[in-house]
């Protein structure tokens, strides 16, 4: 494949491109779902193609091609070049990339068992077994379970001499039970609406205990139909699991993508309150909060050897002892905050997409408390852990998240389940109200597989590890 990539590089060199790179991606995706005792989806998809990025006279151009022929690579390179030339006509300053040495390397996701070697029969057997448990009660109107596996083989070559080959593996499992009566619809999912996938092999599916948890999920979905409505009040909140992952994702992850901070996403996803003059000063959170970005995190969905800028993966603080300490960067923007090298966050979702700054694996570091101490320290509060709805404003300040269910806490003890809990807040106020984080014993990775950003929209993946955390005086709504 590198011989093929070199053809494009030769053209870009000949045309005197300031910089250029080629990504060739060969990807296989297997997706199976069972819905209400029927096969919902079953597919095995393969795609191969390449994307060429050109920087010419300070302007970017990108074009993708699908035919692995010399003719196609030449035409695509010329198209990218033509686009870059047009871009250079409307630039305030010529784009320059931060230095990165040329790398020649191979990297792959560590795994124990390749999920593509596991038979469809075994996969469907698992899904139908889960379905049988979920549909055993007629009040469940919609039972849905799925498995998804992606193997991405990519080759990266640049005009600077990099030649990087990587094989990335994604495995994921998920299910939900939806109950309904005349008045309402309720849902419980496992392990959560956005989670269930990691950068691992089939061993993840074996470890998740999907079948073992199905009855609990079904029973909770049914119990929610008759559960009391969540009260509206200001109370203490314990967040955990999938919901804490989403809180990190929406109110810290997106808020600290440097392209967004600089305004380049303004017309679509929005910008950010966490502007660059606040770096190193702004009290984003209470001092016990440490949020660490890590492209090397084992099992992370954004874990890889190198990003799509050809920069080696790194680990750094986004929030350190409560202070805004870093951003997600690429080679184009990192100099705008005085950095000489990128933190390696430029990723594209396919060969046909241009790399853009994406949230890395971003985790809340464990605290000092036991889980019991977190709950025990609350007189009146609520525990939330499974996301159902999400919305946040265009500067990532005002958020409102809804969960599948909540558990009221009274005098340090769980006092029963309530339905339709929603909480609302302003990002820095919320994170500054965090007064306790559970210790390493409950620290766990949660994958996010559906992060949309950019125009044309790209879907990216990352992880947010955390242990449960406590927030004081949060606005809980119906």
């Amino acid at each position: 494949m590198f011989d093929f990539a070199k053809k494009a590089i030769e053209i870009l060199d000949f045309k005197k491109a300031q910089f250029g790179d080629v990504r060739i991606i060969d990807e296989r995706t297997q997706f199976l779902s069972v819905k209400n005792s029927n096969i919902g989806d079953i597919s095995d998809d393969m795609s191969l193609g390449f994307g060429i990025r050109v920087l010419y006279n300070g302007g970017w151009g990108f074009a993708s091609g699908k035919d692995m022929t010399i003719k196609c690579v030449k035409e695509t390179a010329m198209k990218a070049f033509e686009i870059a030339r047009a871009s250079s006509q409307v630039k305030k300053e010529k784009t320059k990339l931060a230095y990165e040495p040329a790398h020649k390397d191979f990297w792959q996701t560590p795994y124990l068992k390749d999920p593509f070697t596991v038979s469809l029969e075994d996969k469907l057997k698992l899904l139908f077994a889960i379905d049988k448990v979920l549909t055993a009660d007629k009040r469940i109107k919609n039972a849905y379970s799925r498995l998804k596996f992606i193997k991405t083989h990519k080759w990266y070559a640049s005009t600077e001499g990099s030649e990087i080959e990587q094989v990335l593996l994604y495995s994921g499992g998920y299910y939900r039970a939806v109950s309904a009566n005349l008045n309402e619809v309720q849902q419980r999912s496992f392990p959560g609406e956005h989670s269930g996938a990691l950068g691992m092999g089939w061993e993840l599916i074996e470890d998740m205990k999907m079948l073992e948890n199905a009855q609990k999920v079904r029973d909770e979905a049914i119990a929610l139909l008759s559960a009391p409505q969540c009260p509206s009040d200001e109370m203490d909140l314990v967040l955990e699991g999938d919901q804490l992952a989403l809180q990190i994702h929406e109110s810290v992850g997106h808020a600290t993508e440097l392209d967004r901070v600089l305004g380049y996403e303004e017309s679509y996803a929005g910008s950010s309150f966490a502007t660059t003059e606040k770096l190193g000063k702004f009290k984003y959170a209470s001092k016990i909060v440490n949020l660490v970005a890590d492209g090397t995190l084992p099992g992370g969905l954004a874990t890889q050897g190198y990003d799509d800028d050809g920069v080696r993966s790194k680990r750094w603080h986004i929030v350190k002892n409560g202070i805004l300490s870093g951003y997600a960067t690429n080679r184009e923007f990192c100099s705008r905050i005085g950095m000489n090298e990128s933190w390696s966050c430029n990723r594209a979702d396919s060969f046909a997409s241009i790399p853009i700054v994406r949230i890395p694996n971003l985790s809340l570091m464990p605290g000092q408390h036991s889980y019991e101490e977190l709950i025990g320290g609350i007189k009146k509060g609520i525990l939330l852990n499974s996301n159902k709805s999400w919305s946040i404003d265009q500067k990532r300040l005002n958020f409102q998240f809804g969960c599948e269910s909540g558990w009221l806490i009274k005098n340090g003890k769980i006092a029963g389940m309530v339905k339709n809990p929603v909480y609302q807040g302003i990002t820095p106020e919320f994170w500054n109200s965090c007064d306790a984080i559970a210790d390493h014993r409950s620290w766990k990775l949660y994958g996010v597989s559906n992060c949309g950003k950019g125009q044309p929209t790209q879907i990216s993946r990352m992880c947010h590890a955390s242990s449960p955390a406590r927030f004081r005086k949060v606005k809980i709504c119906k």
Partner: protein
Amino acid sequence: MEKTIEKIFNRAKNTACEVIFFKNKNSLTRIGDNEISQNVFTDSEYADVRLQKDGINFKFSLNKFDDESLDTAFKNALLSFKYMKKENNFFPLLKTQVKIDYKRHYDEETANLSPAFRAEKAKKIVSYCAKKGMTAYGIISNGSSEIIIANTNGVYQRTTETSLNYDMTIKYGLGYGAASAYSNKSDINYEEINARAIEKAQISKNPSDIKPGKYTVVLEPQPANELLSFLGYYGFSGLAYVEKRSFVSEAMGKKIFPDFITLTDNAIDGKAAGMPFDFEGWPKEKVELISEGVIKNIVTDRSIAKKTGFRYTGHSLPQPNSNGSIAMNIEMKEGNKSLEDMIKDCEKGLLITQFHYTNCLKPKDVEMTGMTRNGTFLIENGKIKKAVKNLRFTQSAIEAFKNIKCVGDKAELFGGYFGKSACPALTIKDFNFSSGTEF
């Protein structure tokens, strides 16, 4: 494409086979911080192949059509059949229908707008903004898409469309303004879009505080379309109806909205018309969802039609599919007042330019939340008095539609997640804003 489909059919031999072939060419120039920040062209084609054997479906997708790739894909697919069990809800591939070759929304000029053309449009707005101390952000995108649906029973349908999208956001001081247009041909008035976005940004320069609460709102077509799209998706999807997850499950045949509310899914000749057949190749029917306030129909695929007794309306997604049938060409019947008159008729209320990051809290109530964006204005005595800071709304779309007081006279076209929609401006009373933000 035809030759590739033939190659695929030849490999299927005695197995029933359906191919959905997608071919897309899209260009997008992105403007950020008064410059072109991204500029891309993508050229993709791929085929979704469905094989049927012994009451079982198996699908694969690929974008490589050489003999070796096709042979491997078929070998894996046919091997997979032996691990699978007969489906309870199996439908054989459709038989020959009237052949459709739909090109009504294809425009050669729009398909081929050059990078230089887009750069020129970008330069115009960027130069103006730079001179006036404003900042421009937005996109100009154009492209073409072609879909062929063919099967070994003789179905062969084709649709080819072009699209052009111009979306501009202007920042001025602390304020924002935005305007956009979507079309299938090159008839967008760029200057008008620029002028609207600039004017809104100028008025929004110093937005005032405003308390959350219930307000009469005049929703411009974009935020009105957000409500319409959620109501269409959560209310009139066939499977949500069957599984009683939709408010329509209990409201069929009942009058729950005002007389002047009529919603139609119309892929044939409506304002949001498009692909006139579904993903099994069946011609789409025009479906009246709400007629003069009365809930009339849902959209169906074969499975939903069988379960409900409703006609098969041609709204199948690619099969097998866990999402059921979805209305993809919804339009709302226009009223007779201009947006300007709707503002004049409003004694006290808010004019909303856009909603941002909307999501559903309670599917059966279609209770939604989201933020206002890019121009939120207080109306007093029929006039825009001042810009206000953005608000979060938490509101049932069903209740909002019950509270519609006026429907605008001009429906705008939108390209969305599920097809297209056409929606006019709406005046709605008692619209609930649950909290505010800092800007």
